């Protein structure tokens, strides 16, 4: 085994790239679940975002428009879920699973003509001064804009939930929807907005996969990333900071095990491939084992104004 072939600077830099799709999807789902809705269709919205983002970017040779298209597509796909669960009182788990399958099927259909194409390059943004720092500059400050955006989004969501009145209302709706309704808050509207936000975030995460990380379209390319995002939200006890820890941990171990495989580590390949899932869940379980489990009390419960 030759560990010297692993360059720590490039490793960290690729960890950030590898974690970004999951981080985007997970932070969106966190907002959805904080409002009391369990949307299991993250995988479906992600892959739809991946294919639509890719298609728009290739057709316009503009990755930026690709991301916008992906966010819209993700939100649009989550709209039926929102209407079904909020107005027609359908079961959230079953509807979410259905949404996932619709997304997978729809993406194969849309993606057929785009197979084998290459995504237009997405420029890196070298942050002035900071990117000139030795080691850290290359590691942290010379990425594409979506990496910075995902980190900023985590901070924004954290501040929104903790400090703003709208964030307080969102948490209140997820905590006790009957109480929120009695106080005159529009539970359905708030939840629908949260679901749309979650869809848009999942779409962005998917597009990052097809436009930057891979960067091309292949069928089923999300390969369970949506499910990992869902698991990270739960094991992170619904806290934005821990979601970031979970996403970076998963991204980090994924990249590290690939490097180890390439370096010819004396560990069975199957074990290495499974390691990101095992380690991420293990670490987050340990983190969440102490302290309160802040699951929103109304999570997954249908709301009807007359009950």
């Amino acid at each position, binding site marked *: 085994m030759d560990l010297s072939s692993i360059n720590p600077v490039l490793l960290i830099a690729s960890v950030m790239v590898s974690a970004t799709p999951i981080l985007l999807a997970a932070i969106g789902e966190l907002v959805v679940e904080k409002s009391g809705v369990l949307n299991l269709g993250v995988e479906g919205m992600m892959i739809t975002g991946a294919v639509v983002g890719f298609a728009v970017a290739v057709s316009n040779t503009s990755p930026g428009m690709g991301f916008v298209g992906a966010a819209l597509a993700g939100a649009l796909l989550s709209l039926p879920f929102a209407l079904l669960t909020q107005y027609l009182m359908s079961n959230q788990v079953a509807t979410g699973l259905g949404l996932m399958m619709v997304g997978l099927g729809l993406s194969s259909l849309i993606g057929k003509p785009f197979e084998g194409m290459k995504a237009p390059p997405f420029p890196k943004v070298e942050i002035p001064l900071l990117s000139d720092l030795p080691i850290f500059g290359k590691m942290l400050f010379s990425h594409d804009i979506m990496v910075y955006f995902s980190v900023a989004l985590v901070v924004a969501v954290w501040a929104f939930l903790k400090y703003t009145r709208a964030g307080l209302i969102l948490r209140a709706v997820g905590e*006790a929807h009957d109480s929120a309704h009695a106080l*005159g808050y529009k539970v359905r509207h708030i939840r629908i907005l949260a679901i749309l936000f979650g869809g848009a975030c999942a779409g962005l995460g998917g597009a990052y996969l097809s436009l930057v990380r891979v960067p091309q379209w292949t069928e089923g390319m999300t390969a369970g990333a949506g499910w990992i995002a869902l698991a990270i939200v739960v094991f992170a006890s619904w806290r934005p900071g821990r979601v970031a820890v979970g996403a970076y941990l998963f991204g980090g171990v994924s990249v590290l095990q690939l490097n180890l495989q390439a370096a010819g580590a004396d560990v069975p390949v199957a074990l290495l491939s499974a390691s990101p899932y095992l380690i991420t869940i293990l670490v987050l379980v340990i983190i969440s084992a102490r302290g309160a489990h802040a699951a929103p*009390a109304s999570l997954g419960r249908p709301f009807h104004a007359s009950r």
Partner: protein
Amino acid sequence: MNDVLLGLEGLTKAYPGVVANDDVSFDIREGEIHALLGENGAGKSTLVKMIYGLVKPDSGTMTLRGAAFEPAEPRAARAAGVAMVFQHFSLFDALSVAENVALGMENPPKPRDLARQIREVSETYGLPLDPGRTVGTLSAGERQRVEIIRCLLQDPKLLIMDEPTSVLTPQEVEILFETLRKLASEGTAILYISHKLEEIRSLCDHATILRLGKKVATCTPAEASARELAEMMVGASFETPQKAARQLGEVMLDVRGLSLPAPGAFGTPLREISFQVRAGEILGLGGVAGNGQDELLAALSGERLSGADVIRLRDRPIGNMGPTERRALGVLSGPEERLGHAAAPDMSLIENAVLTGAGRMGLLSGGFINWPKSKGFAEDVIRTFDVRTPGSGTAARALSGGNLQKFVIGREVLQSPEVLIVNQPTWGVDAAAAAAIRQALLNLAANGAALVVISQDLDELMEVSDRFGALNEGRLSDLRPVDGLTVEEIGLMMGGAHDMEVAHVDA
């Protein structure tokens, strides 16, 4: 002080199949405490929801200080000066006191100012409260204080209180009443909804009585007797339960040093509970909700197991037996929560009858359910306890609370238990039905059964029980004979007034 604050004129609201309010008119004056009385289903909640903007009336008008008042949503009602303290608290367990208060305000000030205002108002009205505490850790009395302070911070002209005293100790009730009188003397009108007639007689200036959605009368409660008020509510006279002289027999249920850890994060541990109940005796257990009532019922019914010798039936250890085994021996129970605990909501009354009666009523033959016999048993319960239902095949969920309560209690009573443990047997049940249930419990004891009645309704406990004890943080007080017990003594047994101690901050 005699100007009309809120005038209601011909308010009508119909839901499919039922007219909740039918042409209701009355006036609430400035600075008065006005009671709204009525049985369950009389339309009190609907009326209040119309005033608070949660429900739109089909017809009729409201005026506030002479101007038309048509709140489209609670926000508009709050802006007009109407505030409401809800029966089932409209609080958020995981949020802090200050956050809960902020959610009920239109334009909450900055967090720091809000915390200061909460402290100021809570001191002015003698309702100590720490703005930083998480609401899930508060007692029922403290939670109600959060609701009241949330209302007071908005300077309401009209404060609506929906059954505010059902969760309070007598001392807490007294403090609440002083707060309300103080508010009224400052010019705030209060619309006070309650079942408890004695409270209304001591507190309220006027009372409006609703029956089946219609206004029956507006009267001065201090000039009417509680019985007259009750009969106006029910529309007929009813029998007060009679306590027959009873012979106490051998010790049936013997509990010695029952201790169990708390079942969950918000549960209460049981600590060293010991008592005996004799044949023909009713032991009444009071206490503020959340002090171990549910946990004690679970331990006695067999839902949670303890050491075999801790609980004995006629000197036979049963502490390690599950509910089915205990039922076979004659230890039956009726938990507090009707839907989901005492009855399966989406199953029919027949199926619900089988669920607890299968063994004792012989509803099984060779492991299969004997449906005709089960139907007979369910219909027996329905007939004997006057359960109003379209039929025995109706889902439990479809029954009103009071009717379902009659069914689940009747189902146990007809199985002729040797020991019966019930929690809140008449919770949410109208006066006539409550009297019938209490009479059934008394008859059961007269026939030689031993009963443990857990309740938060002190009047009920005084009416049925021979001895009284109070649960406080999972401990049982000394047991005292009911005869000669005063309300003050009971309050002290229940742990005194939570209001009188300064709210403590959890580390």
